[in-house]
């Protein structure tokens, strides 16, 4: 039995639904439509068939971008699934001052990627903190080109992403740790299980579901990387444009007289498939693990 007029819920839902249709669903469809055109940033555009998709096959920068994305994901995954869990265990106990530490660890998440990338740019500069210290300690004789070498630049950006993500995933784990049975921990402690054994046999299985969710989040955000690489490379995408990510390429084609929204849309479709694959794989793993 209903206690309101039929249209009341719709009045409440309409604003959100409008946004969903205009800024999510329609753009999804329109991306596919645009990818068959040569639309320009200022407007216009005509149907060009599969031309954009043919161009994708010969795009050398895209090949580098895809390789970079895969490396990004593969390196980020282990670090960002394990380290934040250890951090969460560290800040779980309510010690005096723990709120301060939790908040402080979360600070890099709150800061804009642009801000932290500019900070790292200065730290990794040829004459910056890291090179200065390393030379002082005699580890290296000349400065390491963190920001101008193709691979060093990529790995600098990856480290930045890992550093910035620690607090974010820590908080998600922290919420999950609250659900891990305390009784189990207590029983194991009474039975003389070491902290390490309790971590491996109680904590990890207890947060398994969260871990898989987090792996999906890490993979997808690694494949979507933009600001870190963009700022660290000074907007140029590294030597010969070999440090671009797919999103950086999309951004490049979105602007200026050389811009081509049709091609950018074709790149967006590539990005969609690239992000969906790890999502499906990890979701499958989750189901299998749940069945076992």
């Amino acid at each position, binding site marked *: 039995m209903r206690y309101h007029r039929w249209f009341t819920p719709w009045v409440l839902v309409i604003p959100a639904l409008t946004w969903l249709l205009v800024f999510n669903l329609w753009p999804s469809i329109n991306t596919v439509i645009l990818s068959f055109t040569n639309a320009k940033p200022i407007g216009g555009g005509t149907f060009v068939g599969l031309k954009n998709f043919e161009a994708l096959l010969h795009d050398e920068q895209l090949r580098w971008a895809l390789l970079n994305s895969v490396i990004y994901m593969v390196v980020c995954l282990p670090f960002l699934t394990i380290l934040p869990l250890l951090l969460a265990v560290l800040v779980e106990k309510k010690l005096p001052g723990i709120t301060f530490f939790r908040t402080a660890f979360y600070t890099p998440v709150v800061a804009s990627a642009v801000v932290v990338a500019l900070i790292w740019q200065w730290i990794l500069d040829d004459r910056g903190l890291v090179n200065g*210290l390393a030379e002082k300690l005699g580890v290296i004789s000349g400065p390491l080109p963190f920001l101008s070498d193709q691979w060093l630049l990529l790995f600098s950006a990856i480290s930045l992403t890992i550093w910035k993500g620690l607090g974010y995933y820590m908080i998600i784990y922290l919420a999950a740790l609250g659900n891990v049975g305390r009784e189990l921990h207590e029983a194991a402690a009474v039975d003389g299980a070491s902290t390490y054994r309790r971590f491996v046999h109680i904590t990890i299985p207890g947060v398994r579901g969260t871990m898989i969710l987090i792996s999906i989040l890490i993979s997808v955000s690694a494949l979507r990387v933009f600001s870190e690489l963009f700022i660290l490379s000074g907007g140029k995408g590294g030597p010969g444009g070999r440090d671009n990510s797919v999103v950086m390429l999309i951004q490049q084609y979105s602007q200026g007289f050389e811009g081509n929204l049709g091609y950018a849309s074709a790149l967006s479709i590539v990005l969609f498939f690239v992000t969906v694959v790890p999502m499906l794989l990890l979701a499958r793993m989750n189901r299998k693990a749940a069945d076992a």
Partner: protein
Amino acid sequence: MSIVTDPARPVAVPEASGTAPRRRKRGTFGFNSLSPTEKVVRYVLLVFVLLITIGPFLWQLSTSLKGSGEDIYTRIPRLLPSQPTLSHYGEVADTIPVWDYMRNSLQVAVLVVGGNIIGSSLAGFALSRLQFKFRRIVLGLFLATLVLPGEVTIISQYVTVRELGLANTLFGVALPGMIGALNVLLMYNAFRSLPVEVDQAAIVDGANVWQRFVHIGLPSVRGTLSVVAIFAFIGAWDDFLWPLIVLTDPDKYTLTVGLQYLSGTFSNDPRLIAAGTMIAFIPIVIVFATLQRFFFKGVEEGAVKG
């Protein structure tokens, strides 16, 4: 998505008085108390992680305060400036209209926060507390869009905004993010945890939908609502790619785009860039530090969960 309830939190559990002291006497410690050694180890680790997470910000702050005559490239890094000065903050304002950029960022953030608080709480309430036809389908639509990374549709979103005549405007920057699908789902989840009986009692008392929303619904979801607001603010303030695509006129830049502009065009003095980054960083830290207890309370209510 489930609500994170944690009855096992130490604070909520009354100490089982008899057993814990007895154990301590025998030299072993109750589960909640830590041995002095473990405490020390924990604090050492906490401070170590603190240095890693906060260190770079302090270094940047220090650089921004170092005088122009001071050697910032020295091999023996000095955290404390020997000639502290605030002059670089003024220099930033002389180089780029940084206060205008801040106002622009604030405008966008306020629009996004306002839109999300209103839009997502209304929709979340209707989807969780009211029965209507196609409710499940609407809910499914919101869920389905979560699979789609925002960057995939960013180009056609730009086309939409351009066709609305909002390209190169701050309103165009704010508009698409004003009601986020994820926020609608978070609010839906929060409203759902309220027992149905409360609603029924209110209906018996003759409360209409609006009264139930304002007097019963909203007060019970303050935690989640503040998380939605905090994240909306941070998201809008920090966003870079979208304003970079929408805005072409340097007068209209938001802080992040303006900073990139500063570092790309005038990147001669690291002190200047450092001062610029601090101008963008300090407000967001203040906002977060002030609101962090709502944030962590919201986390415990389960608001932060994919």
